[in-house]
Structure formats: structure tokens, C-alpha cells
């Protein structure tokens, strides 16, 4: 047993040295995950913060002015143009200068004073339908509250008291960053593990390794452990950015999070090593990995919810470890659940590891050249 551990330790040491002695690797393992976590933290947002709008006010009354004041008061809407005629609308929308145009008809004030329904036209640039949809909702909410104030100081008889669990201000960033803890490290662990054996094969060192008394299992463990460590370190970098830069409070326990992430990283290393064992050279390993990473990330629920996918794709995501890892990371981080609650995430990860790791070890020796 002691000898076994000693051998594993020496394999791990060799692997770490081989990875970190290459200056390009040192940069590639740290810098991208750091940059990406910042970039994504800021860029990956569906929250509306800035809606440029143009105003076409044909009524020129106090009501429309008041309504616009409500709109400006939100801080989200910024007027970029005052239009004179209907014909100007196309210009500002087409050029993308304004996301929306708000148009008050000539009879707006009259209709409102007469107790009628006074229509406001809202024209949206829906080239990005997501942004347009959100903007419409925003404008709708402003108009609702304007209607309420019309009815005097007593306030509305009914108020909605919204409370959001786990993400009080409903910021996209709060969802994305826990997801990134898993996804950013996966990209690199897959690449590293897929290339590790392929690189050794190309350099001829794998033969030298196989003639030594190491068993395939030992070689496999020796490769997996350092990469898992690197993967977890990268997760830690993202976690630190989330906690200390973006100040997203963590509800769950670190132990639970790392237990889940550990299992997930092992599963991805297993996948990477299996790719590695079937690739003839580094180029193939790299392309296969890339080919795999794309669907894994896209179908993980990171950018768009799994529930919005058609049924067959939802079924397909059952073999995607990232899907479970993102769910797990979000739940532990935001909801603060314990290991028992996320057991449905852990079991698939366990199954994936249990298949890929032995497969990789077997392929090391038995791959037909």
C-alpha cells in the first residue's frame, strides 16, 4: 500500500512538473479562467440597464410629459432623440440608435381626460428579441404604476409583494458565476487530460512509461489526480472572483461545493483521458475535445435553461456532466442545500466517472495501434 502511494505520488509529481515547466501552460492554465470569469461576470447579463429610446410626442400635453418623467425616473431609459414625424421612426430604429420608440398620438391627453383608454404606441427593435421583450415588460410596468397614480393618493387596493428566493435583486450574474465555477474549469481539464496521453504518445514517453512496472491503473490515477487538482484550483479562482469581486454571497458550505466539484472534475478527466486514449495524435485529441466541449457547454443550462429545450435534447443532456455540475454549483452556492439534496446530481456524475475512468485505463494498454 505504501509502495502504491509512493508510486502514485511520484507519477503525480512528474505530471505536475511536466505541465508547469512549460511556460505556455502556466499562462494558459491561469490567465484565461481569470479573465473569463471577470468578462463573463460583467458581460453575461440579461438584465436591462440601458435602453436608448426615441420619443414621438404628438399630443404635447402634460400627461405625456408626466408619463415620460416616470420612464426617465427608472434610470434604465435614456432618451436619444425627439422625433417630429412618423417617418423618423424607421430611421432611429434601423440605425440601432434607439431600441424603442414611444409614440403618443395627438389625442392622447384628450382621451385620458375623458376617461377613455389612451393608447401609447411602443415600437421595439426586436433584432435581439430577448432585449426587446424585457424592454416591453419594463415599459408596461411603468405604465401600470402611472395608471395607479392617476387614481389618486389612496394607492391601489391591491399590491403585489414579490420576493425572490436566493437572488433578491434577480441579477443574471448571480446565476452565471456559480455556473462558471464548473464550466470554465471543465474546458481546461478536458483539454489537459485529452492532450496528456496524446502528447506522451507523440513524444514517445508513453512507451517508456508502459515498460516500467506501473500498472495502467496507476498511470491513470497518476494522470487524473494532478488534473483534478488543477481543475479544482481553477474552480477556486472563479469562486474567489464571485465571492470577493462580485460579492455574491454564498449560502451553502464550501465542503459540499468542493465535494460535488471534485466528483464532477473526476468525471470530466475521465472523459478527457478516454478521448486521449483513442486519439492518434495531439491534433486529433484537440479537435475531438473541441467537438465535445461545444455541445457540452451549450446544452448545460449555462446560457439558456435546459427546460426550454425540446424533450429529446433534454434526454441527451443526461450524459452531460456539466449539466449536473452547474445545477449542483448553483444550488449549493445560492440555495445553500446540502449534499443529500443534490444527490440526483451526484449519482449521474458518479456513473460517468465509473464508466470513463476504467475505460481510459483499459484503453491505455489495449488500444490497437
Amino acid at each position, binding site marked *: 500500500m505504501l509502495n502504491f502511494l509512493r*508510486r502514485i505520488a511520484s507519477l503525480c509529481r512528474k505530471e505536475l512538473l511536466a505541465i508547469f515547466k512549460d511556460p505556455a501552460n502556466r499562462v494558459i492554465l491561469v490567465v484565461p479562467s481569470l479573465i473569463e470569469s471577470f468578462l463573463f461576470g460583467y458581460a453575461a447579463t440579461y438584465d436591462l440597464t440601458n435602453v436608448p429610446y426615441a420619443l414621438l410626442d404628438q399630443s404635447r400635453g402634460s400627461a405625456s410629459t408626466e408619463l415620460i418623467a416616470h420612464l426617465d425616473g427608472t434610470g434604465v431609459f435614456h432618451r436619444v432623440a425627439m422625433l417630429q414625424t412618423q417617418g423618423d421612426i424607421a430611421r432611429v430604429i434601423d440605425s440601432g440608435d434607439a431600441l424603442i420608440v414611444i409614440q403618443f398620438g395627438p389625442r392622447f391627453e384628450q382621451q385620458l381626460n375623458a376617461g377613455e383608454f389612451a393608447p401609447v404606441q411602443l415600437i421595439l427593435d426586436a433584432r435581439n428579441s430577448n432585449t426587446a421583450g424585457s424592454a416591453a415588460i419594463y415599459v408596461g410596468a411603468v405604465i401600470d404604476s402611472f395608471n395607479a397614480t392617476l387614481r389618486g393618493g389612496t394607492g391601489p387596493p391591491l399590491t403585489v409583494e414579490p420576493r425572490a428566493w436566493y437572488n433578491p435583486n434577480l441579477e443574471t450574474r448571480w446565476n452565471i458565476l456559480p455556473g462558471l465555477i464548473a464550466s470554465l474549469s471543465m474546458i481546461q481539464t478536458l483539454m489537459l487530460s485529452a492532450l496528456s496521453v496524446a502528447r506522451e504518445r507523440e513524444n514517445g514517453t508513453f512507451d*517508456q512509461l508502459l515498460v516500467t512496472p506501473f*500498472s495502467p491503473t496507476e498511470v491513470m490515477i497518476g494522470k487524473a489526480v494532478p488534473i483534478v487538482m488543477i481543475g479544482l484550483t481553477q474552480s477556486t479562482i472563479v469562486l474567489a472572483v464571485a465571492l470577493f469581486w462580485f460579492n455574491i454571497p454564498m449560502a451553502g458550505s464550501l465542503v459540499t461545493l468542493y465535494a460535488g466539484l471534485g466528483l464532477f472534475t473526476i468525471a470530466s478527466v475521465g472523459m478527457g483521458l478516454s478521448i486521449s486514449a483513442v486519439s492518434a495524435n495531439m491534433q486529433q485529441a484537440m479537435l475531438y475535445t473541441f467537438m465535445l466541449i461545444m455541445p457540452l457547454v451549450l446544452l448545460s443550462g449555462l446560457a439558456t435553461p435546459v427546460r426550454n429545450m425540446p424533450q429529446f435534447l433534454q434526454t441527451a443532456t443526461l450524459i452531460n456532466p456539466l449539466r449536473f455540475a452547474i445545477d449542483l454549483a448553483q444550488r449549493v452556492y445560492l440555495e445553500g442545500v446540502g449534499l443529500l439534496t443534490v444527490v440526483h446530481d451526484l449519482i449521474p456524475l458518479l456513473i460517468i466517472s465509473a464508466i470513463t475512468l476504467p475505460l481510459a485505463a483499459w484503453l491505455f494498454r489495449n488500444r490497437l495501434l
Partner: protein
Amino acid sequence: MSGPAVALIANRVHKRFLVKETGKSTQAVADVSLEVQMGSLTALVGPDGAGKTTLLRMIAGLMTADEGRLDVLGIDVAADPQAVQDRISYMPQRFGLYEDLSVQENLDLYADLHGVPQAMRRNRYARLLKMTDLARFTARPAGKLSGGMKQKLGLACTLVRSPELLLLDEPTVGVDPLSRRELWEIVQQMIDDEQLTVLVTTAYLDEAEHCARVFVLQEGKLLAEGTPEEIRQHARNLCFIVTPPQGQPLRILQARLLDDADCIIDAVPYGGSVRFIRRAEVDPQRLDSLLGGIPATAVEARVEDGFMVLLRERHDVAPMDTAISKAAGGTKNGGNGEDNAKREPDEVVIEVRDLVRKFGDFIAVDHLSFSVRQGEIFGLLGPNGAGKTTTFRMLCGLLPATSGFLQVAGFNLLRARAVARRRIGYMSQKFALYGDLSVMENLEFFGSAYGLYGKRLRERIDTVMQQFDLEGREKSPSGQLPGGFKQRLAMAVGLLHEPEILFLDEPTSGTDPLKRREFWRRITALSEVGTTIIITTHFMEEAEYCDRIVIQDAGRLLALGTPQEVRMQAGGEGARLNMEEAFIRIIEQERRKNSESPAGEANP
């Protein structure tokens, strides 16, 4: 000739490289001046790292000299490299064939690039394909050719038109004797037919014999130049052969001679005898006692002899390190072969019966049988693609056999547990240690792989560091060591755990004669203490070091026995063949027997 009579003039050329790790620069080419005449074959020879390739690259306009001037075909290369590149052809050491293109497509590409008119191509192709014997394979992807065929195709690609100057960088490295001879025949024929001007670098000095002029480079400097005859002059009257008594392996006498550097410049086994160069000023009495009274016959000097004399005398290279002799002492717990009573000297340690390996329909190894006894040096020989490497990999347990029986040290290594693999050492053809790791880290890692640790590991590392002359290099990244160091480190790693059997796959491919001598001195020392050695090589003279050899072609065993027996098989009693001649003869006999279209260009 309307062009200049001189193809190349180098005037005090210098080139330095910056070594990234240390920040220091090394002088790759220092103050070299030379001239190459039109229509001649000129050789650049010298040990590894002498600057041959750098010089060639500068001539080809791929590098720029730091100082000095290079005029190629009357053009200053530094000023207008493209003008030179339009007119010359260059075959780099590793000719970059496009491996997924077929033979024909590779040829077409280069013909197009050199603007060879369509009308000329038919004849040219027919001729090139005939000379290279590739006509049957025009549709085959270049990647699927054997090493020798690849080199020939590379050469053919550079000869799609008649260049005004042809640069060949070690065209025969890693190529078997048969293909090597064919390559030279092609070059020779082109020179005869087209008055081609050729500048070739080589580590095989017998190749320099054909050249009109030879330049000897050493550490970037021009050491000597002249006709082959002038180079030979340096060793005139110093070369002898001596035949040891029947039954005594040549290497014993050879080692004894080599170890006495004061008397002997060089000694190699040669056609059943030992060929040696004595120092000019040697005391005849001392030499006589060294030879043990066996009479020595004077022989003609070769270019290689002149080269050895030049290198040893002019540069005073320490001949064989005393550490090498210690290599023997250090291994096997300080004992030597005879003390190792546990093991019978005749015990069979490797047994192979009816071994077969197929790749799809292709039979790479075809019912091979042989056995190796303890303490033997056993050579696996054969042309490129003969199945040597496949056999070798099966023996090491890196490749499963399709059928047959295979035992190494009592086990099939593919399936065997760790214990069995602890008994073998392995050194692959190309450097296969972790290049980014330092010397010490590699030794530590592989030591621990074999279950060495703590004090025992330290001791062993210290021993091999000393044995293989690696001291002072502990912290250097292994991948950046000079070639010779790399090879010694690989050996050190293979021997760290004192294996009973050592596998060596073309360990001397592409190394210069000096390093090969040194290497073999180490091998013979190891064998003296009872280590069994399995080795593959393309240098046929090296087969003479072996106790027994096997010659394979197309997967089948063609000859098995002592070098003497194999020579007999090839040429009968009377013929005094050297190993290379014997080898070529055996292969050609066999191929003629088996095929209606003989592959080799058999000389009548």
C-alpha cells in the same frame, strides 16, 4: 558552362544562437570559409552539433549569417534569398513530405513549384520513379511508405528538375544499408548524367569516399578540408587489422585496444577482425603487448580513419572515459559476471516461437522464432519496414502479438505484473524522456517507477550520473541537452534499476562515429557483467559487436547466428565480406527468390 565555375563561396561566415534558458549565445558556425566547385560532389562532415545543418540552411537562405558573406551561384544569399531559392534544391534532414498526399501528388507539387514544363515531366518522372523504385507505389500516401522509401521520395522531389545546386542534409539518417546504397546511386547517377553540383552533410564517413572534396567541421569551425585522399593521408600507415583467436568475441579485443588511448586512436570490429588506428608516435613494444602477440596486418586508410585521427589529434577529444569501464563495475552490486553464480551463463532469457503480428491484412512479423541467452548482445537487423520495430515492441510488451509464444525473463511482458517489468530496461529510438523535466527529475521519476526510493534511489542516481558523465547537468532541462547527453541520460534511465535485460531501439541512429564508439564501449562493458542486450541498428559494422544477430525482411527471419555465421551464409567460405555486404546480399537473395520483380538494384 555559362554560369560561374564556383557554385558556392563562403567567406568568414559566423552564426550565433541565443540559448533561451541561460541567456548565453552559442557559436553554431564560426569563421567558416569554403568553396564548392560546379559539377562536383562535396561533403560536409563532422560530429553532431558541428554546425553542418546551420551552414546548409544559411546557404539555402533560410537563415541569415551574423557575419561574413555567402555567395551562392554568384548571388549574395543574404541580399536576395529568393533568387537563390529559385535555382537550387534542398533536402532537409527531416524532409517534410506531405504524408497524406500520394507519392505522385508530392512529385507533382514540387514539379509545379519549380515550374517544370509538362512536356519534360513524363521522362523525368519515369526516370526518377525507376531510380527510386517507387513506380509501384505512386498512388500510396507518403505517410505509409517505409523510412527508406520516404527518403528516396524526398530526394526525388528535390530532383524533379535539375537544380543548379543540390543541398542534401544527412539524407541517409535512419535508412537501412540497402536504401542507403540506392540513394547514393541516384545521386551519383544524377551527377554523372547532369553534372549536378551537390553539397551533402553526412555522419556516415564511408559516404564521403565518393566525394570530390570533403570539409570537416568541428564545433562550428572548419577543421580540415581536401580530397578524400588528402583526408585519408592523415591516417596513412596507421591502420591495421588484427584477428583474434577463434571463439573470442571481437569486442573483447576491441575494448582492450580502445581503452588504451595512448596507443590507439580508434578500434572497430570489421568483418571478423578488429580494425584499429594506432598513434603515430606509439611504442611498438607496447602495442605488441596490447595485441597479445597477435600479428596485425597493415591496411589502407579510409576517410573515416582520417577523420578520427583529425578529431582525436587536432582537437584532443578525451577518447573513452574511464568512467565507462567503471560502468561495468558499478552495475550488478559490484560483482561481475562470473561471480553471479545464481545464473547459468547459457540460460535462455528470451524465447520467441512462431511469433506472428498482423495489422489488418498486412503481416508485419511472420512466424518468427529465436532465443537469446543470458549475457548475450543480440542484434535485430533488417531493412526499413522489415518488422524489426514490431518485433521489438512485442518483446517489450508494448504491442500484443497476434499469435505465437513469447517469453522475456520468464514472462510475457504485456500481461506480466510489475515484477517482470522491473527486470528489463528500455531505450527507444528517439529521445523519450520528459523534455521539460530536468535530468535529476527524470532520474528520480524513473527510479521511483522501478520502486527505488530514499537512500537507495540517491545511491543509484549518484552511480549512474557518474557512470554516464552527467554530473553538473542535474538541473538542465533534459530536452535541451546536446544529443550525446540525451543519449547518455536515456541509457542512465534505462539502467537505473539494474535490469537484467536491456532493450535498445536504434540507439546510434544519426550519431557521429565518436559517439557511436563511446556508446558501444558502454554496451560491451555492460555485457561483460552479464546484462543481456537486445539492440536494433542500421549500422552494419555494429552488428559485429553482437554475439548473435537475426536478419529480418518482410517479417520473416532470413538469417540467425553469429556475425561470422551470417557472413558465411551470405558469401560462403571464401568470401571476405564485411557485414554490410553480407546483409545486402542476404536480403537481395531472399527478395529475388520471393518476388518476380526484385526490389533491389542488384549489382551484377
